[in-house]
């Protein structure tokens, strides 16, 4: 009783506004979702605002998609959730979008709380926005795009999973998906140089170097949890002899705001990175081994930032593109004797394979590093989502659904016979790690950087002095 | 006995059919407008009763039969009556192609006079 009274005095956790202050963020973080979802159960829908948003943003493309869907069910077996849930018709992409966004549009936004919760549970709990279904629809209906749109509508009404609300809040407050400040980041860079310069003389992580060829942008998880990744990137750039830099402000390229559907936050997030590109007058951008970072900063970002050309201020490369270029031009030389001997397979991340066509790039890299490369089936742009994309990995509410969904990737990996999965994407990497944790199929997984570092031939002039 | 009866039936049937055919011919001079010009015809030729049109309806011969000279119809009994003589299947010069000539002439008049069939199957029965 006393506790209830106390919780009533607290400010509400569920609001229609994004989290923009540290106090609100801390409150959300402390809650761990319990009070949050309770509040959501009774949170009213602002139907007038919803209708207004629909009128302003639901245009001919989406309305046409919803209208001309022939209800043919050909999208059913394109969705890994459908397959993983024993062909449950309720997991057919068309059904999922029809019963949520379709109904919302039909009712012109006149829906209730329960309806919006169902929308949320479908948009985040039954779809990772991998866009695979859209590639198989004869009418060219991309349900992944529509779910992305639905997420935006849900966010504007406050119906968003706890962790997604936090994610966009992080971006508002820290311009990063985690509570890493510019100072923290710059310190981590210094620390990583100190840790490694003994083995790689002359190693540096140039911060804010104006006029460098490459501006390297990371995922906040790296400085926060895997700083060695940053060191590996630095060493590889160093060995390749690149002129490169990392920005202080604008160092983070990911966007949980994109997963959350907080479009205003997406805009301010990506504009930070673009401002860094312009401030440092770099020639090119290279992003780390992250799928959604590439999607958010290079593919979708220009549009959020209002860039009519659809291009970022400077050409944007995914890490795999830089790696292949360095291998092909000989900037990085690998020791062929150190090629991976055991069978190895490759995860194609939706965000830069299906949604940015880098299919051949990763395969060419595999030819440099693996002796026995086994393709998954299906592969390339037809590959299934890892099972944890679109923010799903991070949402506790849908952990059970996520783990069921992982079965498809598990079976794909098992079918290759390989026990080693290369994944140049944080989300895929996480999903595969969790897959091993849940299903214990005895696999290893890795980003490209550690593999490359293991094989790279260090040019004589860059070797530590004592080795001479 | 039995054989006879069968023969009888055959005879009666044969006579009856002759009678019917004969009666039909006597009653009405039915012409199939089955021009040989149409090699690959899509529909059976139109059923056309000259009697019904010329005698009963009293339509002027010149309404259908025509040879134009200086804008005047100079057709008479002695002239060519076969439509396909002039109207070829494929249109040649200013001459209306055969099918169009038939349709325009027949259907056009039926429409104008509000008499006679207009639908495809009524002139081209299966």
């Amino acid at each position, binding site marked *: 009783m006393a506790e209830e009274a106390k919780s009533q005095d607290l400010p509400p956790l569920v609001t229609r506004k994004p989290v923009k202050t540290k106090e609100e963020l801390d409150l959300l973080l402390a809650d761990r979702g319990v009070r949050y979802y309770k509040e959501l159960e009774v949170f009213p829908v602002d139907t007038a605002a919803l209708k207004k948003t629909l009128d302003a943003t639901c*245009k001919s493309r989406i309305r046409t998609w919803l*209208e001309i869907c022939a209800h043919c069910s050909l999208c059913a077996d394109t969705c890994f959730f459908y397959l993983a849930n024993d062909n449950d018709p309720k997991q057919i992409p068309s059904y999922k979008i029809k019963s949520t966004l379709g109904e919302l549009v039909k009712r012109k936004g006149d829906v209730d709380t329960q309806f919006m919760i169902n929308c949320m549970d479908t948009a985040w709990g039954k779809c990772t926005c991998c866009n695979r279904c859209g590639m*198989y*629809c004869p*009418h060219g209906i*991309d349900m992944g795009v529509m779910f992305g749109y639905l997420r935006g509508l849900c966010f504007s009404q406050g119906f968003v999973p706890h962790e997604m609300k936090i994610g966009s809040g992080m971006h508002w407050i820290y311009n990063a998906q985690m509570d890493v400040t510019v100072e923290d980041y710059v310190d981590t860079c210094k620390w990583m140089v100190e840790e490694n310069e003994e083995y790689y003389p002359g190693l540096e992580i140039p911060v804010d170097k104006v006029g460098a060829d490459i501006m390297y942008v990371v995922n906040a998880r790296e400085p926060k949890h895997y700083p060695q990744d940053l060191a590996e990137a630095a060493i590889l750039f160093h060995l390749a002899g690149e002129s490169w830099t990392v920005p202080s402000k604008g160092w983070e390229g990911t966007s949980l705001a994109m997963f959350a559907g907080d479009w205003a936050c997406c805009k301010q997030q990506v504009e930070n990175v673009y401002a860094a590109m312009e401030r440092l007058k770099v020639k090119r951008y290279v992003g780390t081994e992250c799928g959604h970072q590439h999607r958010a900063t290079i593919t979708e970002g220009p549009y959020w930032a209002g860039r009519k*050309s659809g291009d970022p201020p400077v050409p944007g490369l995914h890490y795999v593109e830089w790696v292949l270029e360095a291998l092909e031009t000989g900037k990085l030389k690998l020791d062929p004797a150190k090629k991976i001997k055991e069978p190895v397979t490759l995860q194609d991340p939706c965000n830069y394979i299906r*949604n940015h066509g880098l299919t051949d790039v990763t395969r060419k890299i595999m030819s440099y590093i693996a002796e026995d490369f086994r393709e998954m089936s299906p592969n390339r*742009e037809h590959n299934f989502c890892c099972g944890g994309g679109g923010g799903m990995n991070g949402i506790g509410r849908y952990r059970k659904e996520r783990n069921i969904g992982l079965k498809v990737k598990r079976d794909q990996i098992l079918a290759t016979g390989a026990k080693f999965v290369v994944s140049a994407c944080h989300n895929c990497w996480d999903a595969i790690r969790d897959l091993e944790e849940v299903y214990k199929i005895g696999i290893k997984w890795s980003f490209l950087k550690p593999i490359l570092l293991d094989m790279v031939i260090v040019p004589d002039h860059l070797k530590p002095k004592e080795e001479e | 006995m039995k054989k006879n009866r069968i023969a009888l039936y055959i005879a009666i049937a044969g006579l009856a059919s002759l009678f019917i055919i004969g009666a039909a011919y006597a009653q009405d001079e039915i012409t199939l407008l089955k021009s040989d010009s149409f090699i690959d015809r899509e529909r059976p030729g139109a059923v056309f009763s000259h009697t019904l049109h010329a005698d009963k309806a009293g339509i002027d011969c010149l309404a259908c039969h025509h040879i134009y000279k200086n804008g005047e119809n100079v057709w008479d009994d002695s002239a060519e009556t076969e439509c396909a003589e002039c109207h070829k299947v494929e249109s040649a010069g200013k001459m209306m192609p055969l*099918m169009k000539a038939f349709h325009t002439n027949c259907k056009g008049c039926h429409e104008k006079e509000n008499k006679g069939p207009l639908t495809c199957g009524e002139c081209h029965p299966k």
Partner: protein
Amino acid sequence: MYEFISGPLALISFAIFFVGIITRIVWYVKGLDWRLDRVAYTEKLGAGITGAARSLFHWLLPFNRTTANHPVFMAVTYLFHICLVIASIFLVAHVVLIEESWSISWITIPDYIADYMTLAVIAAGIFFLIRRLTDPNVKILTTASDYIVLAIALAPFITGYIAYHQWMDYKFWLIVHILCGEIMLIAIPFTKLSHFFLFFCSRIQLGMDYGIKRGGAKGRGIAW
């Protein structure tokens, strides 16, 4: 009766059909928004056109994965649509009537081919109906309008077949046939049958999306 439905009513139906289609295409194109859709339609028109052409090529022809994964259904679907369009547009009787009314004409197909095509359309329609009634995946998606739309699409072919073969009361079936055809023409802009032309809009749009943004500029270009 026949004069009215084959005359003024046909004219009205065609007018609604064409004006409806043009209006909806204009509405579609005007509703495209480079910022909302996040596709640089005009700035990267060249890449967009390439992507659109690729998209249409792979889906108007059976060179796509869905056909490979669902060969029977897709074969029936292609047959249904090809026969439906060709039989109705190139039927001699239709072309003759249009030529007599509006003095425009085009090539025709022999009646016996149109006859087979009509049977194919009806058979495919029955296949779709049975699939809707029995397949759990299709069942969950099916709404009443799906049946109505299927009926609207099939009616002209069933009645046309009866009328052509002059079974039963010819004139009655002919009139019903023309009415059904007119209902279909009028229904096309206003129902799911609008996919007759919105299919092209949707495919071109997605083709442009992939051509401009999602891999068109990089890699080997994805066909979707």
